[in-house]
């Protein structure tokens, strides 16, 4: 338990009140004027002063062996020294001194402390001597370390306006080290800085009174054995690593970083019951198949597009829960296939065949109808800076529109009939998927004629599909540079690609691939990073999305009427959620604000909202343990069933042909 006092206050309050015989306590004010971490520790003599000054000198406890526990692999000395370091960091100086006395281990030798003090106080000449005394030889990089020190010295002279001294350092210390001119030139040009602020800005350096000396110390750390000088906050670093490891092991992790309580007392694990896997609401108003759903950015409205030629905007409030049908947008001549909310949620786009409609989301009035595309508009996406939106069409065109619906730019004819496209959140790239245009090449046709009769439409129950995806010929994922509109990457794939989403870090594209696969592509390298399997997809447009806190999950619809959820990084299938009626689950969408909720839509004319069942933070222990067990089994199966253990953890090549900057051919 901590006394509710600030560190600073306790430092000063202790000294006057301390008992005279409590020897080390007066060192506290000396040694810890600044309590800014271990680097702030300045008293080189603390360990020595302890036992002498204590009233009852502590005898050293002698323990057998070197391990912390009999059967542990942790070195007792290392452990104790880290404890001493953290005790000092927070200001428990006496405890630290006591521990040093009792254990016989010191956090660091007086030489290290002296070196630290020299750096922090800017005693540069002494620092170099101290560095030598630490046994840093020329092979260990003494000159590199000395360069760092001289550089700091040079900058500090410049900062206080001692240009002459600075130039001396430059000439006599930095220049003779025959460095790359590229390293030296920027340094020498800093002489031209107008004032200290300008210097700090140009050098990207925060001055002698900022954190620069402490940073220098961190950089120097790499030249000094860590057993000699322990890296700062080492214990805490290790605990942070443990926390990250536990998070990566938590399959159902869906708690935000701030609210996620992490206790050292027990391992972190999110309860499966806290995961949105139960239908809490069924929205049954559409009179035909529901094909697309999109959440508004504020997470309060859900738009749904249906084969019944209408779009419904639903109001979905969670606090208190209230769900209603806000608006119904009709006037579509055909079924509606795509939706996109503007960044401020004031405009909703819908596409129906070759038409794009812009709707006012408050009044439900159609602001504008765009009929510039010659064929079905299959993708709509607002540009991340709000300057308009992009449409992609089966007519092979990608067009950029202003927020007023006026055409601003066009990609011209692309090599694919667009099926879906997405813009990276960092606003640098556009990723489109679609079917390669056969052009005049008779190859796909001959294939279709001779071997595989093309499926009529997929709408007739009689049509049996033996090779449903291959029948269409070749498909591609194309990555464009958004500003130049140049193609950066093109990946040819055999199966139909029906959906593309981009990860929050703009690094990965999530692509549905028929039959029965979802791919995660690294769009910078053009390599497949993960593959998710389990869902059924043959003939229809099935869409998937990332979801949850940090986009930890991948969710997809499926032609078997279930919703599939995977752990994004581990590729493990977590949930197969049933509930929708017969037909496909066409699309899924995770609430962007309420990460504990997502929606799915189906051929059964309904939309389902999925939420967690447990409202209490602790679910039934027994049931969750059972769930863990089945998961562990499942994961094992998954790994055995895969093409090799560990494969799903590494980025791996699928053998798909990748060409940079040019159209690629199929592998």
């Amino acid at each position, binding site marked *: 338990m901590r006394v509710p006092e600030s560190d600073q206050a306790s430092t000063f309050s202790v000294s006057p009140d301390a008992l005279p015989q409590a020897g080390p306590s007066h060192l506290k004010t000396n040694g810890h004027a600044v309590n800014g971490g271990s680097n702030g520790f300045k008293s080189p003599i603390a360990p020595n002063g302890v036992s002498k000054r204590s009233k009852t000198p502590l005898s050293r406890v002698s323990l057998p062996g070197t391990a912390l526990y009999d059967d542990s692999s942790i070195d007792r000395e290392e452990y104790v020294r880290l404890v001493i370091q953290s005790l000092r960091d927070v200001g428990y100086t006496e405890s630290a001194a006591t521990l040093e006395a009792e254990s016989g281990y010191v956090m660091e030798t007086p030489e290290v402390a002296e070196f630290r003090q020299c750096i922090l106080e800017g005693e540069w000449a002494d620092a170099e001597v101290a560095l030598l005394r630490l046994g840093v030889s020329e092979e260990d990089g003494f000159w590199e370390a000395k360069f760092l020190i001289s550089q700091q010295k040079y900058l500090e002279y410049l900062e206080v306006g001692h240009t002459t001294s600075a130039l001396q350092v430059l000439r006599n210390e930095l220049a003779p080290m025959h460095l790359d001119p590229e390293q030296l030139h920027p340094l020498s040009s800093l002489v031209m800085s107008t004032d200290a602020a300008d210097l700090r800005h140009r050098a990207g350096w925060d001055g002698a009174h900022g954190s620069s000396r402490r940073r220098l110390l961190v950089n120097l750390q790499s030249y000094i054995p860590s057993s000699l000088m322990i890296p700062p906050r080492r214990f805490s670093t290790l605990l942070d690593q443990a926390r990250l490891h536990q998070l990566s092991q938590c399959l159902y992790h869906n708690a935000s970083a701030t609210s996620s309580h992490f206790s050292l007392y027990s391992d972190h694990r999110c309860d499966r019951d806290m995961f949105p896997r139960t239908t809490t609401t069924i929205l049954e108003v559409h009179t035909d198949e529901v094909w697309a759903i999109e959440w508004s950015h504020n997470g309060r409205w859900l738009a749904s597009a249906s084969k019944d030629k209408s779009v419904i905007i639903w109001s979905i409030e969670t606090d208190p829960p209230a769900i209603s049908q806000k608006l119904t947008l009709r006037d579509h001549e055909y079924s509606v296939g795509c939706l996109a909310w503007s960044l401020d949620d004031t405009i909703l786009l819908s596409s129906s065949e070759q038409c794009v409609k812009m709707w006012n989301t408050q009044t439900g009035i159609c602001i504008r109808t765009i009929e510039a595309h010659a064929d079905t508009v299959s993708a709509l996406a607002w540009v991340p800076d709000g300057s308009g939106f992009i449409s992609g069409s089966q007519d092979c065109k990608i067009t950029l529109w202003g927020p007023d619906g006026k055409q601003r730019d066009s990609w011209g004819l692309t090599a694919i009939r667009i099926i879906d496209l997405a813009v990276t959140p960092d606003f640098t790239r556009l990723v489109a998927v679609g079917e390669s245009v056969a052009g005049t090449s008779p190859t796909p046709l001959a294939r279709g004629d001779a071997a595989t009769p*093309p499926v009529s439409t997929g709408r007739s129950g009689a049509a049996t599909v033996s090779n449903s995806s291959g029948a269409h010929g070749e498909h591609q994922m194309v990555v464009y540079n958004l500003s130049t509109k140049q193609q950066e990457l093109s990946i040819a794939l055999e199966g139909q690609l029906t959906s593309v989403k981009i990860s929050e870090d703009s690094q990965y594209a999530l692509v549905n691939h028929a039959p029965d696969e979802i791919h995660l592509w690294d769009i910078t390298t053009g390599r497949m990073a993960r593959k998710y399997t389990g869902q059924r997809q043959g003939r229809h447009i099935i869409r998937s999305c990332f979801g949850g806190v940090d986009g930890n999950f991948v969710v997809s619809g499926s032609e078997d009427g279930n919703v599939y959820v995977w752990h994004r990084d581990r590729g493990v299938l977590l949930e197969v959620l049933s509930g929708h009626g017969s037909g496909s689950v066409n699309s899924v969408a995770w609430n962007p604000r309420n990460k504990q909720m997502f929606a799915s839509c189906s051929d059964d004319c309904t939309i389902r909202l999925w939420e967690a069942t447990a409202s209490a933070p602790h679910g039934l222990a027994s049931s969750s343990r059972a769930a863990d067990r089945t998961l562990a089994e499942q994961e094992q199966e998954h790994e055995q069933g895969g093409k090799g253990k560990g494969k799903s953890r590494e980025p791996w090549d699928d053998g798909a042909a990748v060409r940079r900057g040019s159209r690629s051919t199929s592998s």
Partner: protein
Amino acid sequence: MGMSYRRYLAGARVYGCSNCRTHLATIHSMVSRAFNGQHGRAYLFDDVVNVIEGEPSDRQMTTGNHTVRDIYCCKCGVILGWKYDKAYDPQQKYKEGKFILERSLLVDVQ
């Protein structure tokens, strides 16, 4: 059932729906021009795309009794012809699984 986009064909000659130009068949998959429909001349094709098939019904045709389904354009819903499910006369078996499109309802789209 489910959402899908219309298919696009490529070739020397592509026939489309005269009402909405949806691609239907190519000349490469044409089997015969010597058929008659309700609106005059009709073509027999191996494969037709982008059509919806209706319910099967038995119809007495000039070449005998057949089980057929009407086929509709998947975009505009116009009846374009029919598909042969079954031919009762062994001589006519070759038609099974093939499609009739009426010439007057077709347009060259490419």
